[in-house]
């Protein structure tokens, strides 16, 4: 029961983050949304393991946390090296 509530909340959060990723005026908003989405995915997998009472999927959650970080760092490094033409436009 408690995990079902948590899963619902996480899904709502993921939906909102997705909306921000679609709308996001600047690319940084999109990166932020993707980052948040990744964090919530980690939580989702962990909580889902508990919900189905097979909490041994946490390896995947670890990989996600790792991959998400690498992805964001790669994106940022890329943005710093090739400054996007749209970044300087209005917010």
């Amino acid at each position, binding site marked *: 029961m*408690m995990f079902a509530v948590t899963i619902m909340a996480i899904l709502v959060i993921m939906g909102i983050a997705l909306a921000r990723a679609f709308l996001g005026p*600047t690319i940084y908003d999109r990166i932020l949304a993707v980052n948040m989405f990744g964090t919530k995915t*980690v939580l989702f997998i962990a909580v889902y393991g508990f919900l189905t009472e097979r909490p041994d999927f*946490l390896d995947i959650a670890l990989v996600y946390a790792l991959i998400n970080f690498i992805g964001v760092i790669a994106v940022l490094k890329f943005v710093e090296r090739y400054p996007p033409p749209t*970044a300087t436009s209005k917010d």
Partner: protein
Amino acid sequence: MEIIIDGLSWICLLIGCGLGLSGAIGIFRFKEFYTRMHAASVTDTLCVFFIAAGMILQSGFNLVSVKLIFVVALLWLTGPVASHALVRAAYQTGLKPKLGITRKQSSLRGKSST
């Protein structure tokens, strides 16, 4: 005993969900990038902690809880660093924050208050 643990994990999970939702609302409603960034990064950290704490209370101390602690540690290490790098990249590529007052005014105000 079980009731206490259940109650505690309910509280932890609900706090975590509340924090996560507030972060999501913040990321959606705020007007400007830096405020959104602030909302998302601050709430994310505690949200992860509380939800994982709720799950650890439910699982007891075994391999699962150790892995959960690893997840929390990893997210706590990477989350703030990613936020820092994001803001830094945004600032350096010319996305300036909208300040209500300029820097000079704020430093003057700080002096007058002391």
